[in-house]
């Protein structure tokens, strides 16, 4: 077990270099001069532009920029953003907020998705199943912008049940509405996945054996069916966690959440190499941990699966 975890941690090293290199290259390959854009339609004197280029090492070739950045990381310096703030501070400020939001969203979509998916699977082809499909279809065919805006307008402005945007400090109660909106995108996927998995598991021999042994549904459904159906769902949830961390740009914008999605998007648009790479690096490390945990969970859910050799 420890050996397996150790191997997985070792694997993080090439992933770290692969990701940072690829991302740095992509930011570098993005067309447009980031320094020019700092000044909008106004043009500062060329000498000032030159100064700023030097300050951010933008006058150096790509590979030199990359090694300056990597060198900085090993000295514990993640660089500074164009606004002069240490990237480390920005990370420390945004990740806690976004992780809170992501966990809340994950909680909502897991509970609602698995519950609806389970009932749909057990009552395949019945009214509940059809209604769940209809709701899923509506949610997935509307862009997140629309769902977020409607939710904000109805619950925030008209009914006043929630604060329209997230207030300072991003308290949990303010995050509920954006988390629900975020959860709505993956809800459909989880319902379909759980449902399909439940249908498959229900037909397996051990479930039929359980029924014929006379076990109650109360025991068979959670213990035999659900537990054995969860592997694909949990896997999907893990990938979704990654999406929630970086991909919540639109929702974070509409609810004014000072989180990762928003900050990362701005950094990408501005071409701030160090900021983008640092964010993605933290993200990929988190993602590796989550995947490791999920792989270990497989063994728990299905004892036949063993990684440890």
């Amino acid at each position, binding site marked *: 077990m420890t050996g397996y975890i150790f191997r997985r941690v070792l694997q993080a090293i090439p992933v770290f270099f692969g990701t940072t290199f690829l991302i740095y290259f992509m930011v570098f390959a993005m067309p447009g001069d980031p320094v020019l854009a700092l000044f909008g339609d106004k043009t500062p004197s060329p000498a000032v532009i030159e100064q700023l280029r030097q300050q951010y090492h933008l006058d150096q070739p790509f590979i030199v920029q990359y090694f300056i950045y990597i060198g900085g990381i090993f000295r514990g310096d993640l660089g500074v953003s164009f606004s002069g703030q240490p990237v480390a501070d920005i990370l420390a400020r945004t990740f806690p907020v976004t992780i809170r939001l992501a966990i809340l969203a994950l909680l909502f979509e897991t509970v609602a998705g698995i519950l609806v998916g389970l009932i749909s699977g057990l009552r395949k082809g019945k009214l509940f199943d059809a209604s769940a499909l209809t709701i899923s279809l509506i949610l997935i065919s509307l862009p997140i912008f629309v769902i977020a805006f409607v939710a904000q307008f109805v619950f925030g402005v008209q009914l006043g049940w929630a604060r329209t945007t997230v207030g300072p400090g991003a308290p949990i109660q303010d995050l509920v509405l954006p988390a629900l909106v975020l959860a709505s995108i993956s809800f459909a996927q989880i319902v379909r996945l759980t449902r399909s998995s439940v249908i498959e598991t229900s037909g397996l021999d051990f479930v039929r054996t359980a029924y014929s042994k006379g076990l109650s549904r109360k025991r068979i459904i959670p213990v035999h069916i659900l537990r054995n159906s969860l592997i694909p769902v949990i896997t*999907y949830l893990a990938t979704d966690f990654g999406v929630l961390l970086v991909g919540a740009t639109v929702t974070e914008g509409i609810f004014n959440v000072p989180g990762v999605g928003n900050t990362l998007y701005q950094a990408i648009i501005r071409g701030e190499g160090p900021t983008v790479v640092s964010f993605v690096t933290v993200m990929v490390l988190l993602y590796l941990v989550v995947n490791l945990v999920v792989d270990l969970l497989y063994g728990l859910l299905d004892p036949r699966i063993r990684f440890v050799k």
Partner: protein
Amino acid sequence: MRSAGHFVAPLEETPIAAIDDVKVAEKPSNLWIDAWRDARRRPIFWISGGLILLVLVVALFPWIFTQTPPNDQCFLSNSNGGPDSGHPLGYTKLGCDVYSRIINGTSTSLSVGLLVIVLTTVLGVFFGAFAGFYGGWVDATLSRLGDIFFSIPYILAAVVIMSVLSQYRSIWTISLAIGLFAWPSTARVLRAEILRVKQADYITASEALGVSKLKILFRHVLPNSIAPVIAITTISLAGAIVAEATLSFLGVGLGSDVMSWGNDINRAQSDLRTNPMTLIYPSAALSITVFSFILLGEVVRDALDPKARALR
């Protein structure tokens, strides 16, 4: 000297694998033929098939359904106008015919959606199947490669790909931009399912029979693990069509003169409170299309699962 524990007959004595092979060759029926026989008996198959056929006909021959040009003859004086004769669904903000835009947008949206799911499925199945089935260093390499791709924010990836390929912006490049960074999700779900399925008795049996590893993977493991992939993929179709819209919105999509549902949905957002119908119509077209693919996915899934067949 043979050990006393297990007795394994040498293959030349009891060539079970060979017998197994002959059987398959003799019987014209296989998994896919069985699936087809099962599927064609179900009304839901014909309903979804008919819907998909209809969408395909609209995509290929839009002129059968409307003669109104989608992008020319737009007048601001018709802005957000309601339905009138010859324009059953009214007008967009720029005064273009909504019905004609939906009909003419079908081809782009459907192409992007299908190309993306083909791309993610091919890549996802390849990476997921080998990683899950072979395990060890194959798993480590393929899975970590997937992690790298998955960690890259797709907006960044799309902006870079579409800017670099700005001369060649087409349905193909935009599908590449969307699909190239979405497949790890499919791969991981498939890998998980394969980890589970490969422990099953019939797999152990096949191995014991000496069936080659590749054959086991493609004949036995994959068909039994594909259900969650189908469940995700049919829903992803909608995601891909909407993603095309998001990219257009970010300025890295297809040009504004290209008709697509996603483009129209995005354009209609600013009129959400004043004229929601311009948003609802293309969304509905999207829903119906995705709905028919989900139904078809259901049928295929059931048909591929012999146990589900037996239950009916």
